[in-house]
Every structure is written in C-alpha cells, then in structure tokens.
C-alpha cells in the first residue's frame, strides 16, 4: 500500500480537564474521501485545528507527505499543500471573487511580498485564479465582492480558494453546511471529482453526502475514534448506532 498523504499519529490535546482530542490516529490515502463524523462536541473542530496548525497538540504528530509538520504554523502547512475550508465561510468580504482567489494563488506560491506589480495585472496569477473560479462554477461572478455572494456561492468560492493552493490534501469542514438540497447535490458531485486531485478529509453533518462520497468513515466521540471502516461497516456497527446515528437519525 502506498504511504498515506496525511497521517495523524496518536494526537492529544486537552483544554483544562477536557480531553478534546484523546489519542486520535487516522490516515488519508491517495484519491480517497475519508469522512469524519461525530456528534456535536465530539472534538471535530479541535482535531481540524490540530491538523491545520491553528492548535498545537500536547502530544502526537501530524505528518504530511512523509514530512512531520507538527511544529509548523498554519501558513507553512498551507504552503506544504494542506488546504482547508472553514465551517463558517471565511473569505475576504470586501475583495472580489477574483481577488480572493488571486490572494490564494499568490499565497500558495509564496509571492505575497511583491510591492510593485499590480496583483491583477499578473497574468500568471490571474490565469490560474480564473481556472479555479471556472472549476467552482463562479465565472460569471468574479467581479462581485465576496461579501455580496449568496451563501452557496460563498461555499464555492471557499472551494476555489482551496483549489488554488494546488493542495496535496484537502481538509473540508462541513462544505455542505447551510446549502439547500440542490446545492448539496452539486457540491457532492464537485467533491467526488475533486478527490482525484487530492484526497479529502471530510467533516460533514449531511449523512446522505457522507454515505454517497466516503471511501472510509471514522466516527469521533468524546475525542476518540470509536470506529473506522467502510460506509457499510460503519452503518452496521452497533456502537456507532448507539453513540451517534441512533440519537440523531435512523434511516
């Protein structure tokens, strides 16, 4: 088996007495979608923070492409190829769609300290940005300030910005959140396509999407992974049903 793209080894993080992440290990392999599910308060956000570098673990390692990035900060991990999206849309609201994506392209290329050349006149940056915008289906909206976009469009912009990082791995935090059924369906198709670019660690509440997309599912409860396996295995796991699926939805 090939080496995992992203590997989390025995990660621990406590906030006072609360063990938000309690010995989590997981891997993300090439071309797969690995879904992370769990009830509210299970520690999903903490785990994402630890993987992306917003939080430092008390113990354990984060390995990206065989490189230990545990000590690297958020920006360094982003440049090493870790693209994350945020649960609550996070874009620069006053900048246009195009400016947001150009920002992402130049960030990934480490070209943010260029003082003279106008960013939007840089054809290299701009062409790359426009390609990502087209991919996310926002071509007609590129001159609109991000703050004026509809919710679903903003989620797409997030995705275009993540794409712009030319990532080795995606960490997507609830990309379907707040989307209508049509939007969620389109996003599902987009993610299905995206996995061939880079594997996706998908944190998502929309179980239809998770079961449709995921190659593997890990279930996080109280900071621990209680089960990990294929969609069928997870659906059949009695412990998972009791801890999670049972209380929220039974289908």
């Amino acid at each position, binding site marked *: 088996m090939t080496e995992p793209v992203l590997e989390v080894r025995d990660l621990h993080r406590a906030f006072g007495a609360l063990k938000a992440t309690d010995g989590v290990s997981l891997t993300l392999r090439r071309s797969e979608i690995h879904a992370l599910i769990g009830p509210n308060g299970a520690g999903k956000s903490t785990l994402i923070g630890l993987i992306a570098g917003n939080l430092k673990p008390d113990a354990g390692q984060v390995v990206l492409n065989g490189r230990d990035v545990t000590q690297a900060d*958020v920006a360094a991990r*982003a440049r090493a190829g870790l693209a994350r999206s945020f649960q609550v849309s*996070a874009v*620069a609201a006053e*900048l246009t769609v195009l*400016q947001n994506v150009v*920002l992402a392209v130049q960030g990934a290329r480490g070209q943010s*300290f260029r*003082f003279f050349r106008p960013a939007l006149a840089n054809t290299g940056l701009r062409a790359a940005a426009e390609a990502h915008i087209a991919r996310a289906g926002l071509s007609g909206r590129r001159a609109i300030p991000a703050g004026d976009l509809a919710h679903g469009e903003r989620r797409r912009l997030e995705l275009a*910005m993540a794409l712009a990082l030319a990532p080795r791995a995606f960490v997507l935090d609830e990309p379907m959140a707040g989307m209508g059924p049509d939007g969620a369906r389109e996003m599902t198709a987009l993610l299905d396509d995206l996995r061939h670019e880079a594997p996706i660690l998908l944190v998502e509440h929309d179980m239809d999407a998770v079961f449709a997309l995921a190659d593997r599912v890990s279930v996080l409860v109280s900071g621990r992974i209680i089960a990990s396996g294929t969609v069928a295995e997870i659906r059949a796991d009695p412990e998972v049903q009791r801890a999670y699926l049972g209380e929220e939805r039974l289908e």
Partner: protein
Amino acid sequence: MRRETVLNAVLALGLLAVPLAAQAMGEPFIVTLATKVAILALAGVGLNIALGLGGMVSLGHAAFFGIGGYAMAVLAAPVQAYEPLMTWPFELAGTKSMPVIWVAAMVAGALGALAIGALSLRTSGVYFIMITLAFGQMLYYFAISWPAYGGEDGISIYVRNGFPGLNTLDPIQFFALSYGVLMAALMVSWVLARSGFGLALAGARQNPVRSAALGIRPYSVKLTAFVISGAITALAGALFADLNRFVSPSMLSWQTSGEIMVFVILGGVARLFGPVAGAALFILLEHWLGGFSEYWKLFLGLALLGIVLFARGGLIGTLAGREVAHD
C-alpha cells in the same frame, strides 16, 4: 473615469493652484499654510497605510512623526553649534542637507516602527490602540527629559536645511519640495495598494485566519506595512520640523497622533487622497473657525462626529461614493 479619480485630480491640482495663486498675489502666509497641509497630509498618507490598508488602528503615530523631527534636529543641531555629531567611535559631522536628513528620518522611523510594531501586533483591537499609545507616550516623556535637545522646550534650528538647487527659505520653493514628496508618497501608496503585497494586506486585514490558511502570515504582512507606514510618517516629521525650524516633544504627544488620525478619518479611511482632503479641511477649519472663536476645536469635534456617524467614507467617500472594485 471614476468619480474618485476626478476628485483626486481636483485635490492634487487645488493644493498646487492655491499656493501658486497666493504667491502671485503676494500672500506668503497662505503658501506656508498650503505647505503645512502637504506635510500633514504626508503624515496621514503614512498612517493610512497602517490604518486604511492594514486595519491597524495606531494611536501612536506621533512617535514616528516625532522620530522624524528629532532625526532632523540631531543631524542639523551640531552644524549650527559648530560641533561634530559624534566623535566616538569615529568622527561624524552633522548635516544640513535635506536628502540626507530624509533618509535618516525614514530609516529611524522604520526601525522605530519595526520595534513598536513587532510588539504591538501581538495584540489586536483595543489592546493594539492602547499599546501603540503607550509607546508613543514613552517616547514623548523621553524627549521631555532629554536635555541635549532642549527637553520640554524643544530646540530651534535657525536656518532651514538645504536642498540641492533650491532656496528652501523661499516659501514657494519649500512648498514645491513638500508637495513633490507628498505626490511621491501618494504614488507609493497607490502602487502598494494594488500590488500583490497590497492584496495580501487586504486579506490579512479582512480575514487573518483565512489568510494564514492560504499560506500568508498575517503578522509578517502587517508588520511590513506598519514599517512602511512609520517611515513615511517620519519623513513628514522631518519636513514639519523644517517648516517650523523647531522641534519639541509636542510632535510626539498623543494629541499629535490623534490629529493625524483625524486627517485620515475626515478625508476617508483607506482612500488614496483621504489624508490630503482631511488635512486640508483640518487646516481650513483651524483658520476660518479659529478666526471666529478660540473654541474652534469644538466645531471640529462636531464635524468629526457628523462624519463618523453619517459619512463613514469621510469626505472622499461622501463625494465619490462607495469604493468600486477595480477589476
């Protein structure tokens, strides 16, 4: 053409035309007032890079303004006392040359901004305002207790420093010099705002968490902008000291920081010509209202209140409308 572009051209030409007309009519006082507008606007252009482009609400920019002023005094005072600037570890003479003084002022301002910014940018919001204020006050009290340069009384530089090929004591020539520097700084500010760095700075201001996730360190980007901002404001300080031929701790006082911020807010935060409009309005109000009543700052306060409450884009924003995204 965009309305703001037209407005900017009107401001730039107006600031040039008024002193030229005053010169023709033999009114050197108005020329000096226009010079003051240009220099104070320059200080505002510096602050606008931190405040407008970077979202760093610095209430300590008087520190850089004063550093520029004192850089001028430190270099020029030994010359009028017929003493060397220093004798150890090597002998160095002072200078009355403006270009040298300007470079020294900008380097000193940049270093000051690097030190103050490196510490202040670890905080944000109200704490950032307070810590920059505290650093400004530290320098203010240092200057008061610095006997070599007059302490609280300040120090006079009797003859204005020279610029190759110009008679700087002629008000219109000194105005032309100040105006040229202001235009150059506006050009820097314009280029910076549209550059890749300007985009990164806008990202760091609007969404630092997201910027970091895009591989951009908001701290480094903001600190760089703060240093550029400090250097430009220090240059304004050196010119202001030369305008008055006098430097005193009041240049470093927090009221000065507040006034520079008032220029920016009156004119329009993050607007290229905001500080020019703001400084011009400030000086106009000072002289018109100052003629009616010594309580003119009461009216300035009311004007400021009105702008903050009802015209958030300042003068430029009110006249030119919402900033259009330039694509």
